[in-house]
């Protein structure tokens, strides 16, 4: 994943040393600049509610306090919203992984009627702007009693997540050697046994990519959640700032504390798994 740093055998010429220092400084400066909005999310959350004036819009806080976090945690059922997000995201991820790995096995290992056509049709999903589906999904969810129901989001999220997962997994499966499978076939294994016992255990790097990607997409999806979850008790975390935007208009510290709390879980998951994500995404996709 990381290109190995060139290890110099001889001391570098002075010009090269300066060039490296300059590059490092430039990258650091850019990164600091890039982080300003994120820093601001945290610093404003530390702003005391008594503060009338803030420096640089709240980027610099003179008397930081954690009181905002205590207050919003106490006043609002944040764990409830967190649970809602999990109840929507986790089943989606599991369904996408199960359905897409089956399909990817079919596409990469079996020949059947119309396989190329089915694949292309599935990929059309990726070109469809989600907002165009909002009206029909709302109306049919209403008709089938799925408004304010976790399934009302889990099922469409799954459908929308399958195509990308199928691409990633099909390309990964296609790159795996088939000797073991051929041997298993000769021993009389069924296709499903080959899939379940041989291919799946080998494909966790690609499964990890799909897991992380789908987790973040479902966690951050907005327009369908906005329309399909109107009951406050069922809303996922992403809708929470909308509930409080008005309430905390005069208390930016409290509002930003909520923003920081919402952001922590995804960032934690990403940082924890970024190694698998980036290596899987890039290695898998570039070799193809």
């Amino acid at each position, binding site marked *: *994943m990381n290109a190995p740093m060139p290890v110099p055998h001889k001391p570098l010429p002075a010009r090269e040393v300066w060039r*490296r220092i300059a590059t*490092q400084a430039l*990258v650091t400066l*850019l990164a600091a600049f*890039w982080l300003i*909005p994120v820093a*601001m999310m945290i610093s404003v959350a530390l702003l005391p509610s008594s503060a009338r004036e*803030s420096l*640089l*819009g*709240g980027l610099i806080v003179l008397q930081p306090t954690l009181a905002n976090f205590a207050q919003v945690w106490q006043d609002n059922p944040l764990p409830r919203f967190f649970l809602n997000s999990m109840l929507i995201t986790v089943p989606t991820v599991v369904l996408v992984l199960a*359905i897409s790995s*089956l*399909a990817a096995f079919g*596409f*990469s290992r*079996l020949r059947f*009627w119309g*396989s190329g056509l089915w694949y*292309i049709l*599935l*990929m*059309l999903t*990726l070109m*469809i*702007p989600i*907002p*165009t*589906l909002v*009206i*029909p999904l709302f109306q*049919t969810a209403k008709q089938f009693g799925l408004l304010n129901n976790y399934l009302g989001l889990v*099922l469409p999220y799954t459908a929308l997540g399958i195509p990308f997962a*199928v691409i990633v997994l099909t*390309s990964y499966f*296609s790159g795996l050697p088939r000797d073991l499978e051929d041997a298993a*076939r000769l021993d009389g294994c069924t*296709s499903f046994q080959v899939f379940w016992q041989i291919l799946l255990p080998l494909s966790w790097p690609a499964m990890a990519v799909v897991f992380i990607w789908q987790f973040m997409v479902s*966690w*951050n999806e*907005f*327009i369908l959640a906005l*329309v399909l979850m109107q009951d406050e008790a069922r809303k996922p975390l*992403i809708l929470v*700032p*909308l509930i409080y*935007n008005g309430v905390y208009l005069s208390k*930016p510290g409290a509002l*930003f504390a909520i923003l920081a709390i*919402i952001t922590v879980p*995804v960032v934690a998951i990403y*940082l924890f798994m*970024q190694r698998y994500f*980036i290596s899987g*995404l*890039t290695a898998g*996709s*570039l070799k*193809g």
Partner: protein
Amino acid sequence: MRRAIQGQEGLLFILPALVFFAVFVVYPIIYIARASLLDWNGLAAGTWVGLDNYTRLFRDDPIFHKTLRNAALWTLLTIFPQMFIGFGLAVLLNGPILGRTIYRAIFYLPAIVSPIVIGIVWQRIYDPFGGLLSDVARRTALPWLSQPFLADPGTATLATIVVNVWQWTGFSMLLYLAGLQGLPGEVLEAARIDGATGLQRLRQIVWPMLRPVHLTLILLGLIGALQTFALVFILTRGGPNNASQTMPTYIFQQAFQLSSMGYGAAISIVLLAIALIASLGQMRFLGSRFVVGQGD
């Protein structure tokens, strides 16, 4: 698929995926195509009006025309800046840099944060009363920074686009970084010996060799730009006076705030047609793919 197993068993494996596709993609599209021919508030049965919704859209709706213009702006002004800045960052990070992993995570970080969170933070950055930019303006000789960027029809769309570029440039960087690391080292080495300068090498060798990455980013960027909703919704609600309205926010407004489901459906169909034609066209004529260098 050389040694693929014959038979129809494969259909069983892809059946669940196809069922989801049929129920949650194909059926909604048929549904919405029909709804676009109705005058319908979403509650009572609709009245058949034929293509009236479409004639109204194209002939008499200046807001819809504005969303078309904004779609063009979004497409051009997000895709290319995200590509160029992302490429620049990738080149920098591909050099001998200490702590590459940390920098990479920093630039990619905005892409994993919810657009709603990002929108609220940027509202405060743009806020002409005590926001970050206005405070900077007060302390420096840059008074133009203190403007109601989001409340001014002339700048609202651009101000929203800037946030999008900030959020997604890290994604371009990630793909370019992967592309750079996949380039054969000899090519760069040969160019160096020939005396080509760094910039020449980048422009004449590296940039053209990353064509698959460019094409993937253009394709993903196009679809992303056409379906932008959350950022606009939170930053401007399509305002002021519809100046930053996009097709997705206009669909939402018509269908869920003005109860014109039929009209909203017609906008949806137009958006769908634009997205399909533009992305299929790119795949057909440029060879763009959804994943870099991969068979589909």
